[in-house]
């Protein structure tokens, strides 16, 4: 199980970064989504992996619970990254609509002319 | 009375929602009933702008009958279709479009019919005509399209006419 989770994190990270290194804003946002999955799973897994032990207290019997804290952290992280994704999508759209170009590279500004003295 | 109508714009919906609540909380306690009813009143109150011109439903027994018929058909038809999928070569299958002229007028009724058609396997509501007087149905295997059309009109549309109009 650990291997599956670790390799999934690795593959999501790698794919995410590869896409983040593309030149257009859309694949970059896709990459950010993937790497967000990766980091959420990573953070979640920092509490170690347990099946069938949700941290919902059982009043009737003694059972094992998985670590609830990373789950709470990931929840916060998911929400935050949702907000961030929404904003980056919008800014990317704004950039595209204003320039009709979705390249993430900032074009060079025209040089100011004149004698440098 | 007017006030009651405003507060309870649609009693059926309130009933459905109260039942839904009990279904969700998985219990029948008085607390749940009251709370569910409260929500059942509140939510339609807040959402009624989104559902103007609600149709009047008639004859609860008819509704129950209809649901039973459809459920039976679903089981039956599923098996037929599973056989087609699993064993019938694609070449032997006769997929077909069927046009079903509609006698139903209200959107709710048409939707119920279209939904029924889709949920009973082997047929699928694909589209509606540009003025809403015909339904386009696709058949997985219908050597005789007219028979399918008649069956739909007979078995489902007729019943829905009784329920909705």
């Amino acid at each position: 199980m650990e291997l599956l989770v670790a390799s999934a994190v690795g593959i999501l990270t790698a794919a995410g970064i590869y896409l983040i290194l593309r030149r257009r804003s859309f694949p970059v946002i896709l990459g950010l989504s993937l790497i967000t999955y990766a980091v959420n799973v990573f953070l979640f897994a920092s509490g170690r992996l347990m099946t069938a032990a949700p941290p919902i207290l059982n009043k009737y019997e003694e059972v094992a619970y998985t670590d609830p804290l990373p789950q709470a952290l990931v929840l916060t992280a998911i929400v935050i990254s949702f907000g961030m994704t929404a904003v980056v999508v919008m800014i990317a759209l704004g950039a595209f609509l204003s320039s009709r170009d979705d390249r993430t590279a900032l074009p060079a500004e025209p040089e100011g002319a004149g004698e440098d003295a | 009375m007017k006030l009651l109508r405003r507060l309870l714009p649609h009693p059926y919906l309130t009933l459905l929602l109260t039942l839904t609540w009990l279904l969700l909380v998985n219990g029948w306690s008085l607390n749940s009933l009251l709370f569910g009813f409260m929500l059942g009143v509140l939510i339609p109150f807040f959402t009624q702008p989104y559902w103007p011109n609600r149709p009047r439903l008639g004859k609860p027994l008819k509704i129950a009958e209809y649901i039973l018929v459809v459920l039976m058909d679903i089981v039956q038809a599923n098996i037929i279709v599973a056989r087609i999928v699993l064993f019938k070569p694609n070449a032997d299958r006769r997929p077909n479009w069927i046009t079903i002229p509609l006698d139903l007028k209200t959107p709710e009724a048409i939707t119920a019919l279209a939904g029924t058609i889709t949920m009973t396997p082997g047929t699928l509501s694909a589209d509606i005509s540009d003025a809403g007087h015909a339904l386009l149905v696709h058949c997985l295997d219908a050597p005789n399209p007219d028979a399918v059309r008649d069956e739909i009109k007979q078995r489902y549309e007729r019943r829905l006419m009784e329920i909705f109009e």
Partner: protein
Amino acid sequence: MSLFLIAALPFLGAVFPALLIRAGRNAAASAAGLTTFLAFTGLMLHIPAIFRGETVFAAVDWLPALGLNAHFFLDGLGFLFAAMILGIGLLIILYARFYLSREDPMGQFYSYLLLFQGAMVGIVLSDNILLLLVFWELTSLSSFLLIGYWKHLPEGRQGARMALAVTGSGGLAMIAGMLLLGHIAGSYDLSVILQNKEAIQSSHLYLPALILILIGAFTKSAQFPFHFWLPHAMAAPTPVSAYLHSATMVKAGLFLMARLWPVLAGTPEWFYIVATTGLVTMLLGAVIALFKDDLKALLAFSTVSHLGLITMLLGFGTKFAAVAAVFHIINHATFKAALFMTAGIVDHEAGTRDIKRLGGLRHLMPVTFTIGTVAALSMGGIPPLNGFLSKEMMLEEASHTLWNGSHLIVPALVTAAAVFSAAYSFRFIAHVFLGPKREDYPGHPHDPNTGMWIGPAFLVLLVVLIGLASAKIAGPMVATAASAVIGGEKLPYYSLKLWHGLTPALYMSIAAVIGGAVLLALHKPLARVWDAAPRPEAKVIFEGLIGAFTRLSQAVTGGLHNGALTRYSAVMVAFTVVIAYLAYRGGTLGAPTRALQQPGLLPVTGWFALVVATLFIVVKHRNRLLSLVLIGVVGLVVSMAFNYLSAPDLALTQISVEVVTIILMLLALNFMPKETPAETPVLTRMRDGAIAVVAGLGAGGLIYALLMRDFAFPTISDFHLANSYKGGGGTNVVNVILVDFRGYDTFGEIIVLGIAAMVIFALTEAVLGSRVRAYLLNREPDLPRAGDSHPLMMVVATRVMMPLALMVAAYIFFRGHNLPGGGFIAGLVAAIAIIMQYMASGFAWATERQRYPYHAIIGSGVLIAASTGMGAWFNGMPFLTSAFGYIHWPPLEEFEWATAALFDLGVFLAVVGAVLLALESLSRFAWQPGISSEHAMDINPAREDAAKTGTEG
């Protein structure tokens, strides 16, 4: 008068001219003059003490942590310089009042001038070398302003920048040098440093400190090879040149060498560096001066030469040479300031400073001629003027100075310099004033009004008086100042008189005068040779260097920050991986302490789906819609994995967020290209792939290593598990953590969400308020569109689903404290229920039915959450302290209340508002006028029938 006040007066005075200029030029000048005069008078009040050999102190701590303190002291050397600065300053203020034209902003001029004056006074009064540095750099800055005073002249701007670059860099070197010096001496106070000669000279830091300090001094005093800035500083108005470049700023370097002479001088290093530099500068400056046709350039190079002379004297390291240096400082200040003012008068009246266009002015400007001639003769070393006296002393000392074992080098070079010195001095007289009157002066030369010539006249009077009665007039001053230079030790034997007998110095002097006359006679042919001779043009080289460096900087900056986000990200990722790996390598990793869990069928299936979908995204990412579909797969699998791994809350959140995100991205994609072009070269892709794979290995390897080991310590979540029910009143520990144990995180989180929505809203406004609006209105869809935008079935289904979904949201909200769910997920579900209406019936239709502004929903959410948190204050508890209890109202069963639920309601509202505001804003991009909001569905047979019968619309 307190030294503080003397040092502060010019700075205070600097404020007035700028303010008073509206009251007129005289008011500004008077204000400047008055403060200077006050400071000068204050200084003079110390004469008795100074001439008794006492030192006046004034100290207040400023930055004791560093040893930088406002410690001032006044001894002979400081007094001499302060007197020159303030005294000549007065004359310059007077002179400038008449020199500057009506167009020149005079208030600014006097402000700058006083700023500079204050900085100079500060330098010479500082007892703390760090304080001295402060003033030192201030002189660079204020002189920058003064040199660039005539903003419209490119030469002024260039000259100012060159001066600042050279003297500023020297100042920076000096900072290092001073810090070293203070470190060696254990204090930055001069009074302490000057007592530590042995410690300083034996320190291994002596040489670096010496070199660094000397760089500062040499740049300031325009010593070779830093001399080139001075002539270009002549672009300044002449009062500035007269002040800065004769008497004050360029003397600051000399002052510093004199000041530190007791502890730095006397070593071979000192001698060879300082004396040689001085000697070379002196000769070079004199030679160049002879061939300058610009009066001010001539004077500038002559200044360079004389500064070299004094530097050389200080470099000799003997007491006698020190006395001579002090004396020549005084003399040079007098005649050179007078000469600059003369040049200024000539320029002002004749309209040119070009010697080739001058000559014969003695007839037109007799007063100026007299002043200029006397001063120039003194500069040329002609008896009985003061320049002769100190030059004699210099020659005397030079005549027996050994350089690298040679008796000849110094005397010979010094004499050569003296020859050129005499020559350019004669030329100043001969080619400007003598000769026939010309017809082609650009202006109408005549003597200026008294205000302008009175200053130089006074100086020339001093020139003569010192020359004739030097022992009486200059003697005490020279003695006190020189004694301060040599560290209070006994003065050597010297006498300040015209006749010393037939000494080698006298022969050298005579040779100089004769040689000078000969050179002047040969000037024309020599100038031709000079002009033809190739030589480095310092200005060209400097400007070239600076220009090249600026262009290099532009290229480096532009190249490094080339705007390519891909490269920035690649560098960041690669750097992170490398640094993290190195850090990891520096520690140890123990053997696994946990057993590997065997995965079942379900996880393997999920893993496989995830991996395939992810890799397929990478392969197919250019098809944007497909990528989004695949992201849906990834989201689904991750959500299921959370469920499988005992995190139902996460699963719920993940899948809900997922859907909203996809809707958002689809909304955006509508306006964007549907395909990403293939534009990266294979090599780049391979590089990116390599970086990505390494980073992936890092992340995966890290979590694998972590997963295989237990926590090193018991985790804090044991506490959460133990106290969730007791202390938080809930059995869903994750939810209790979110709304209670770490409710503050959640508070921050909803604010993030709220801000995100606001940002999106603001951005929409900005975009739609720009020319993009027109584009959007005329935009043709890039894909063919189907009909029936609001299908009947969809509309009907969502009408039923909306109340159901809201019911589900309520359910998830209320059970969240004890079972999976909570305000956040409930908020998302509710938001999605409403979004379904938007998707089914259209933006216009749904918006029209929206009763509560989303901004207000967000705001109320945040306020409810914050108020719940603040409610605890009234119980005397900290922010966000929760309370809960149980209520029993028969016939109802007991039920629980918790303030956490109220907090969660805040979360719920913020989420609903934020999601909807974001999506609504985004949807507004596509809004077109003319889109109907009347009907929820495009096709509705009932409507048509109703229209026929006329019953409803």
